[in-house]
């Protein structure tokens, strides 16, 4: 049995996740006068992938870049995170990014640590620099304070497990109260829901066997947004493309961008063509461009590859160590000090990590809304736009604003607590808690990772491998539901995360089967070529009547194309009217 808390939380806008996107969505909504609740799995002061800091905030600052947005937009789309953008979203993001930079600066996050707006890192020599360097170590504290100042109510230790949809529109969400040893379900009635659950990590194995939580992005981000959106019927895009990331060998929780050095082979020679000596303005972009460099040289035997800062000036080394602190890598700095690693003398080995989901997930429109009315998504989980922390901040704010405006026209609250979904989850979670024997959530998590590594990896895929993997995933899901056992609230939260990971895995298997070509990191041995007919096409996956659907649609390049695609999407029968006609009848 699991108790359902009788006290529903009521708000205009519920934000699921108190990370960067979530707090900014909450602030955006509160600025529109909405009553806003942020439901956070851990604690807003330190949760999510921006927990202890960050290094760069992509933005267009006209006084630095000039008034022409086009070169900056072009640079964004050509950058390491530019691959999967519906361009009107990227444009809107850039237009509003500076306003958010100024917000942050005003709230006490130092966006001018060099005394002026300064752009360094991730840069190509001789090209516009678009990554604003900032000092992010206090960002979560500052944003939490700002959200509270705007009247946002933050409920910590309340992970949201599901969106509650009634007649095609959001009426609330289901939360899991983990403040006590014994978990309780808590229903939130809301007119709009902003999903801000971050990326999906723990989907593929960590570089160190047995360490599920050795991840670059926050290990508590397990595809909550993608899974909730999928279950709610929203469309997700680009799920078939593995995103790869590199950094310090084995210690995945360490960024790469802040290192001011050259990527070299064992002989000390640069592996890329860009630079032979790095400084704070231009580091080695080799791994951004050749993102498999670290794995490739290991497979070929030419490795290992190193981050080589031995030629970097001491002044830039000091700047880099300061930057590592500001991006939240204090654990690494302490370790280097303890192990007496001297970056002027020692070269650190780097590696490529297993994939995770970022910039793959729900497709949103210019308002941040998914294809489900009242359901918004922002941050690392969005599938048709990506600008990492700056994207989370800027489009989070946009999603919050529009969610608040939509909530204004909604009528009375629907009794979300009466939804069949709540009863179903109560039965399922209650069974997990009632069992005296059974599988532990980690067993299921490891099996998900094994299946993803072997049947949906970034090296080779095929219809037979993907088909087998999807079948085994189905078996795993059935066995998990039948045998999982949880001892307490913490374990139930982890179990719900594993269910989310299985939803993400399912979408990846399906989308990877449907994209019958090789493109980028999606490598099909049964379709070895890159098909020009599938260029500039996004593959959407969603479910309808319990059955997965897939469909290709064009990547949106301009407003005409945007109107054709998103205009048609929003012209579907207005669920709000249907909702008004049946109010109270859930």
């Amino acid at each position, binding site marked *: 049995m699991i108790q359902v808390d009788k006290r529903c939380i009521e708000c205009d806008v519920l934000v699921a996740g108190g990370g960067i996107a979530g707090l900014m969505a909450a602030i955006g909504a509160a600025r529109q006068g909405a009553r806003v609740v942020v439901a956070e799995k851990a*604690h807003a002061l330190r949760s999510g992938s921006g927990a202890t800091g960050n290094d760069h905030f992509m933005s267009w600052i006209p006084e630095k870049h000039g008034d022409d947005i086009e070169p900056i937009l072009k640079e964004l789309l050509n950058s390491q995170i530019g691959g999967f953008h519906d361009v009107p979203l990227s444009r809107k993001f850039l237009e509003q990014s500076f306003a958010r930079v100024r917000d942050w600066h005003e709230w006490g996050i130092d966006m001018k640590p060099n005394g002026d707006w300064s752009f360094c890192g991730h840069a190509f020599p001789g090209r516009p620099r678009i990554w604003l360097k900032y000092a992010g170590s206090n960002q979560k504290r500052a944003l939490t304070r700002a959200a509270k100042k705007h009247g946002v109510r933050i409920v910590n230790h309340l992970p949201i497990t599901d969106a509650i949809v009634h007649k095609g529109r959001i009426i609330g969400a289901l939360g899991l109260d983990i403040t006590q040893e014994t978990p309780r379900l808590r229903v939130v009635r809301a007119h709009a829901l902003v999903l801000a659950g971050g990326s999906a990590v723990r989907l593929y194995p960590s570089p160190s066997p047995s360490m599920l939580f*050795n991840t670059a992005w926050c*290990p*508590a981000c397990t595809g909550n947004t993608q899974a909730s959106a999928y279950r709610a019927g929203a469309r997700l895009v680009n799920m078939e493309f593995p995103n790869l990331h590199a950094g310090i060998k084995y210690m995945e929780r360490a960024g790469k961008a802040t290192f001011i050095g050259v990527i070299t082979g064992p002989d000390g020679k640069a592996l890329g063509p860009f630079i032979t000596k790095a400084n704070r303005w231009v580091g080695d972009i080799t791994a951004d461009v050749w993102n498999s460099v670290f794995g490739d040289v290991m497979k070929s035997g030419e490795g290992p590859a190193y981050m080589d800062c031995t030629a970097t000036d001491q002044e830039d080394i000091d700047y880099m160590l300061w930057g590592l602190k500001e991006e939240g890598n204090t654990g690494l700095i302490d370790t280097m000090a303890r192990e007496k*690693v001297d970056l002027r003398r020692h070269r650190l080995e780097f590696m490529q990590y297993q994939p995770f989901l970022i910039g793959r997930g729900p497709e949103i429109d210019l308002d941040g809304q998914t294809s489900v009315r009242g359901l918004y998504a922002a941050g690392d989980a969005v599938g048709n736009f990506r600008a990492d922390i700056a994207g989370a901040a800027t489009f989070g704010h946009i999603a919050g604003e529009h969610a608040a405006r939509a909530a204004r026209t909604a009528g009375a609250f629907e009794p979300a607590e009466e939804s069949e979904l709540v009863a179903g989850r109560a039965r399922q979670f209650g069974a997990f808690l009632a069992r005296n024997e059974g599988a532990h959530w980690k067993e299921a998590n490891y099996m998900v990772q094994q299946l993803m590594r072997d049947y949906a990896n970034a090296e080779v895929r095929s219809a037979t491998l993907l088909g087998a993997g999807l079948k085994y995933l189905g078996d795993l899901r059935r066995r998990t539901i039948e045998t999982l056992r949880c001892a307490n609230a913490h374990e139930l939260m982890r179990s719900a995360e594993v269910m989310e990971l299985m939803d993400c895995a399912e979408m990846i298997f399906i989308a990877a089967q449907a994209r019958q070509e090789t493109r980028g990191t999606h490598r099909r041995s049964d379709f070895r070529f890159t098909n020009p007919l599938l260029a500039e096409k996004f593959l959407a996956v969603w479910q309808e009547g319990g059955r997965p659907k897939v469909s290709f649609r064009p990547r949106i390049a301009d407003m005409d194309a945007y109107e054709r695609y998103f205009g048609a999407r929003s012209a579907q029968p207005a669920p709000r009217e249907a909702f008004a006609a049946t109010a109270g009848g859930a």
Partner: protein
Amino acid sequence: MPPVFNAHCNGCGICANVCPSDVFSRDNDHQVPRVLYPDECWYCDACVLDCPGEGGHKGIELRIPLQLSLLWIDPAAERRLPYDIIGDHLGTDPDYSWEMPRE
């Protein structure tokens, strides 16, 4: 396993409250929290950063496990073989070589 409390912990419970991975007990009883799920640590350092400690000392520190040790090389290292070879690289023992008859 990480994290590790020391004598400077004042039992305030901030670490337990802010941990993104929920690895600590959250009893709010002004005792040193228990590390319930050490293998779920993200090494993010939030507990250490937010620890007020006592007398200017942090009450908690992060212990990085051996699997995550930094791997580095010293470019100035000698290019000497890491072993001594007895005989030559084909395993030909000079003591029994037919080319080198002995008196």
